[in-house]
């Protein structure tokens, strides 16, 4: 559910509502109520999304902090040299 919430869009809409209130010389109580109801939904959605974002961010942080898992240097591979010289040849 919270993934479908677009935080930026919601914040933009909240900004518009806040601006609307700012620009009203005399706020109409009915129109104001509609805006307030809309803002309550937007704020609730924002809070849900922000909590989700915060959780995801905390998990990412934990993951980053736990990446240094190397505790010991080891030889990953030991290979044998290839024989370059064949001594079976007798050039007499």
């Amino acid at each position, binding site marked *: 559910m919270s993934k479908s919430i677009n*935080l930026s869009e919601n*914040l933009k809409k*909240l*900004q518009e*509502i*806040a601006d609307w*209130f*700012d620009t*009203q010389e005399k*706020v109409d*109580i009915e129109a*104001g*109520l509609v*805006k*307030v109801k809309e*803002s309550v939904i*937007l*704020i609730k959605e*924002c*809070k849900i999304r*922000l909590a989700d*974002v*915060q959780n995801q*961010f905390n998990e990412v*942080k934990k993951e*980053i902090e736990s990446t*240094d898992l*190397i*505790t*010991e*240097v*080891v*030889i*990953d*591979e*030991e*290979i*044998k*040299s*290839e*024989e*370059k*010289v064949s*001594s079976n*040849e*007798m*050039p*007499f």
Partner: protein
Amino acid sequence: MFMIEDNTNSQYTISQFIDLLNNQLKPIEVKIIGEVTTVNISSNGHVYFTLKDKDATAVLDCILWKNRYELSGIELMIGMEVMVIGSPQVYANSGKLSFIAQVIERVGEGALIEAYKKLKLKLTNEGLFAQEQKRPLPKLPHSIGVITSKHGAVIHDFLNNIGLHGFKITLIDSRVEGQEAIIDLSQAICSMKKQSIDVLVIMRGGGSLQSLAAFDNESIVREIASFSVPVIAAIGHHEDVTLSALAADVQVSTPTAAANMLHELWQQPKEQVTNITNQILNKYQNTIQKAKDLVMEYKESITGHYSEIFSNYKDFEHMIHGHVILKYYYVLTNVRQFIHQESVNRIFRTFENALKSSSQSLYSHQEIISLNDPLRPLSKGYSIVSVHDKIIKSIYDITVGDTAHVQINDGSFESSVTIVKGKK
């Protein structure tokens, strides 16, 4: 050491017997010192030479394959005292025993020093050690090729100091001691070329000129100089720096120093990554916090605005109460007072009117009464005659002989009726 089973019951062909001999001879690897008495280099580069004891007549035919000869870095000459390492072998086509030398080196410290100086000069003149030939180490090497002996402290020192940077380390075990190491080192370098590595580290501890001879070998030096990726030489010194170390892109004296160098390459970027990571995490946390603050700000702003409406309405209500209601109350009170006053006035007025009317009516009635006062005509000379208190209005009300009471304006008198007459 040289043992052939009692096979007298078996029959061999010459080839089979020579094979039998060679199988027995091959494991006999020995080190022989002698003086070169003959040298013959064939057209295909193989070297045939004879060694002889310095103070004896014993001789040994030797063979040095072309690539081994090239690896040795020696220019074999008659009279040169050399040490060879190898094993005997019988060549079937001639039935002749030869010593197959795997390694050859000049004998004597003086000879080695001379060879070292000569080769150093030659390679210096070629520009093999020139600084401008040196390649920088990769910024963040990941795959590290290591050529050293896996036995001993060197590899452990290296691994203990390289740091936990997720290196992929590929090791090729090689002998690093003496001339015998030349072949191992050469093969190891050749094999390492096929590996996908970012940097090659060649290591061994310090030692004598002789023990480090492989690292002064021309072939090894050239392979290091031309290696496909930068080479770190962590080779201990003899009196001089080995030629391999001079040819390497970076030379350090110990495996720990080589490990530290690789560690340092990662340390700084690692710190940078940590700083950048912290920056990103902090900035993003701030972004989240700002969004949270913004939401709260909007919440407060919008609810504040809406609360203001109620507040305004309350003010309005107060205003209504304070002004309109009070005024209305005042008006009402006035009205009440007015109504009250008006009622009283109306009552008075009504009463007055009624009084007036009554008075007028009274007057009127008084007038009427006055006008109709039966005594009023008396003043004009009329009189009222009554008999037995009954006013006489007709002749039939009286009879002769009655005593009539006659009332006049200013008194009355009694009169006796003597005649009664009617109108005509």
